[in-house]
C-alpha cells in the first residue's frame, strides 16, 4: 500500500520536470508534487511551515543558489533540517558527493542518460520513500 507523498522537486530544467511528471502519471501515482525552479523559490515555498513536503528531490546544478548551497541552508534550519532530501543529479563528481553526504542527505541518485534507465531508477526511489515511515514536522 503506497503512501501518498508530498514531494518538493527543485529542478531548473523544464524537460527534467516534464520527465518527472510523465513518469509519475505513467505509474499512476497519487503523490503530490510541488515544483520549484530554483533554490530561492524552494526556500520561499518552504516558509509555509503548515504545508511542508515529506520529501525533497534536489538538483545540484542550478543557477543562483546551487544545490549544495541550498542544502546548507536547509540543514541549518531548526525545522527544515528534518526533511529528507535526495539529490538528483547528472554529476557523479566525487567532491560533490562527499560534500552532500557531509552536510546531510537521504540519498544521491545519478540520473542516467537513457530515459528508460532513468524511469526505472526513479520509480524505485519513489516506491522506497513511500514505503518509509515519515515524520511530520
Amino acid at each position, binding site marked *: 500500500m503506497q503512501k501518498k507523498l508530498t514531494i518538493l522537486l527543485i529542478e531548473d*530544467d523544464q*524537460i527534467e520536470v516534464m520527465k518527472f511528471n510523465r513518469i509519475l502519471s505513467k505509474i499512476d501515482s497519487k503523490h503530490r508534487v510541488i515544483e520549484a525552479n530554483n533554490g530561492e523559490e524552494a526556500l520561499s515555498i518552504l516558509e509555509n511551515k503548515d504545508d511542508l513536503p515529506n520529501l525533497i528531490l534536489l538538483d545540484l546544478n542550478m543557477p543562483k543558489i546551487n544545490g549544495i548551497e541550498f542544502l546548507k541552508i536547509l540543514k541549518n534550519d531548526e525545522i527544515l533540517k528534518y526533511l529528507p532530501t535526495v539529490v538528483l543529479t*547528472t554529476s557523479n563528481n566525487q567532491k560533490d558527493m562527499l560534500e552532500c553526504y557531509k552536510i546531510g542527505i537521504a540519498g544521491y541518485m545519478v*540520473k542516467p*542518460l537513457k530515459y528508460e534507465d532513468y524511469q526505472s531508477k526513479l520509480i524505485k526511489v519513489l516506491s522506497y520513500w513511500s514505503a518509509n515511515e515519515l515524520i511530520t514536522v
Partner: protein
Amino acid sequence: MKKFMSDIGIEELKHSLQEKLKTLETSEAKIIALEKTIHKLTRENEELQKRCLQKEAELKDVFENVNDAFVSIDLKGNVFKMNDIASDIFGYKYDEKNSLNLMKLVHPDDFEYTQKVFGKLVEEGSYSKYRSRIITKSGIVKKIEVNSSLLFDSNKKIIGAQGIVRDITQEIAVQKLLEAQKNQLDIIFNNSPIGITLSEEKENDFVFVNNSLTTMLGYSLAELKKLKVTDFTHPEDRKKSNELKEKLYNGEIDKFSLEKRYIQKSGNVLWAKTTVKAIRDEKSNIKFQVATVEDITENKLSKEKLIESENRLTSLISKLYSGVLLENEKREIVISNEKFCDLFSINIPPSSLKEKDSTKLFEESKMIFENPDYYILRIKKLIKDKKVVLGDELRLTDGRILERDYVPISKDKEYKGHLWTYRDVTLSRNYRKSLEAHKKRYSNIIANLQLGLVELDNRNFILSANKSFVKMTGFEEDQIIEKDIRNLFKKDKIKEFIQKRSINRKNRRSGSYEFKFINNLNEEKSLLVSTAPNFNIRGEVIGSIGIILDITHIKSLESQKEVLLKKLEQRNVELEEYAHVVSHDLKSPLRSISALTSWLKEDYGDSLGDGGLKNVDLIQEVVEKMERLINDILNYSSINNDSDTTEEVNTYEVITGIKNLIYTPKHVKIKINKNLPIIKANKVRIQQLFQNLMSNAVNYIDKKEGLVTVNFKEKKKGYVFSIKDNGIGIPEEYHAKIFEVFQSLGTHKDSTGIGLSIVKKIVDMYNGKIWLESEKGKGTTFFIEFKK
C-alpha cells in the same frame, strides 16, 4: 756243696789278692812319676813367675812411655792409673797421695753428655770418640777425644774404665780455620761480579762455576754441564771464539781474551769480556781451563748509545739550517757544516775544512760582505773580548743578510775555542715587505668580490668592509667605518629575519641567517649572512668576520615562483570544476534529447513508420556515444597526481573484477596470472588503466576463438604487466599515435579515442612505462612497467 764253695773261694781270693798287689805296684809307680812331674812343673812355674815379673816391669815401662795419654778410672771417676802424657793433658800430676777425679775436670756444659756416655760404656763395654771439653788445672779449656773400655777384676766384676785420651783442641782449631778459609774463598768466588769457571780438559767439563756466571747466563751448573760453550755463544761470535780456543789447545797461546756475546737461557744477548787461561801439566797438556766472564752489556749499550748520539749530533749539525763553525783556541777549524760552506760559497765539503786555519778562511771569503774590512776587524774584536755576542747583522754584496752569533767555549774556566753560527735572515727581513704585497693583492680581490665582506671588532664596530658590502648598505664607505654595524640595520628597517644555523651556542659570533631590510637608498635587499669569530695569534676572539651574499634577486625569483605555483594550483582546481560543469551542461541537453526521442517513439511510434523509428534509434545511439565521450574527457582531465592517494593494490583482484565487469563475448576467454603482484598505487586509477586495455583487447578480437592473457614479470626494480590479445593488431606506424587524445583506430561503436590516452596518463602519473608489440592480424601485447 759247702766244700765246693769253700774250695773255690780260697782260690779266688788268692788270685784277686795277687791282682790287687799288682795294681798297687803300678799306682806306686805312677805316683812317683807324678811327683816328678809336679816337681818339674813347680820349677817351670817359678820360671814363668820370674818371667812374668819381668814382663810386668816391661809393660809398665811401655805404659808409661806410650805416645797416647792413657788413664784408668774407677766407676766414680777417680783415677787409679794415668801416664805422663795424660797428666800433661789434664795438667794434674797423679800419685797415690793426691787423688784425682776426672769428672770434676769435665766442662759443666758437657757434664750431662759425659754421664750418658759413661752409662753407655758400662752397658756396651766400650765407647769410642767421646768428645768433650775439660778444664785443666791452669783453667784452660781443652777439647779431648777418648776411646774407652771397661776394666774387670779377677772375679770379672767391673771395677772401672780405661781410655786413651787425645787432645784435639789444636786439630779442631785447624779444621775450623780451614773451613773458614774455604768459606772465604767461596764467598770470593760466588760474590765476585765476574763469572769464573774452572773446567777440565774439555770445554764442558765444568768443575766449578760460580754464582755470578750462572746468574749471568741463567743456566744452573747442572744445565751448563750438558752444554758446550758454543751452544750458548752468539752465532756471530762462534767462529772467532772457536779459533782462539783452537790456538789454546794447540799450545800456540796460553791465554786469550775477547769480547763476545752469549745467549742467555731467556734468549737475551749478553755482552761479555771473556778471558780463558790454560793451566798445563808437565807435558804441557791442558789440565784445567780457567775462564773469567765479565758482563759488559751495559758498557756496550752505553757505548753504542754514545756513538749513536754522536752520529745524531753530527748529522744534526750537518743538516742544521744555520751555518756552524767551531774553532779551537788555536783558531783551527774543529767542525763546520754544509750550510756554512753554502753561506760562504765555499766549494769544498765541510769535512775538508777540518784543522784548517780559520783566519785564512775568513780572509779569503771576506769579499762576499759589503764591508769586508770591518767584517775582519769585528771578528778580531769578538775573539779578543771572548764574550757572547748574538745577532750581529751582516749584509752581503749579493743582497743577502746574515745574522751571526759568537759563543766562546771554555772548559774548567780555560778558553778552548769558540763557536760561530750564521743564519740567512734575508727572507724574514724581507717578510714584512712581501706580506704587505700579498695583503695588497688580496685586498684587491676582496674589494672587487661579489660577496660582501665585513670585519668587526668586539664592540661590533666596523673595522673594514669591501665595496660590495658598502654597496649593499647603500651608504658611503666613510659613513660606516668605525661605526656600530647595528646602526646600519635598524630594527624598523628589517622586514624579515630567519636564523639559518648557529654553529656554537656559546659562541654567538658563529652562525648564518637570512634577512630582508631597507637600505639607506630605500632599496629592499635580501641578504644571506654567515659570520665567524676572528682570532688573534694568541687565539683570543678579537671580533668577527661576516660574509654577505646579496640574494635579493634570488629571493624575488623564489617569491615569483611561489606565486606562480599558487596560481597554477588554483587554475587546476578551477579547471577540474570547469570540466564538471561543462560535462553537466553538455550532458543535460543530451538527456533531454534522449527523453524527448523516447517519448517520440512512445507517443508517435506508430505514425513514424519503420524508417522513422530506425532514425530515432540512431539518434539515441549517437546521444549515448556523445555521453561516453563526455565522460571519458572528464575522466581524462581528472587524472591528477596531486589529488590521488596511494594504497596497496592487489592487481589480481582488480583485474579479476574487471573481467567480471566488462562485457565479454562467449568466444573470448580471459586468462589471468594468479600471482599478479600487489603494487602501491591508487586503486581507481589501476582499475581505469586495466579496464581500458582489457576492453580494447576484447573488443578488437576478430578470431573465432579469442584469448586475452594478463601476465607479469618481476624485475629488480619493478613489475612489467602484459595484456596480450589475438585480435586485429595495430600497424607499427600507429604505435606512437594511439596514446594521443581522440586517436581512435577502431571502428568499434564504443570507441571514443580517449581510452589509451587515459592509460598513458595514468602510467605517466606513476613514472611508469608503456609500450606495445603488435603484428597485424595476429594480435597485440601491451606492456606496462611500474616501479616497485
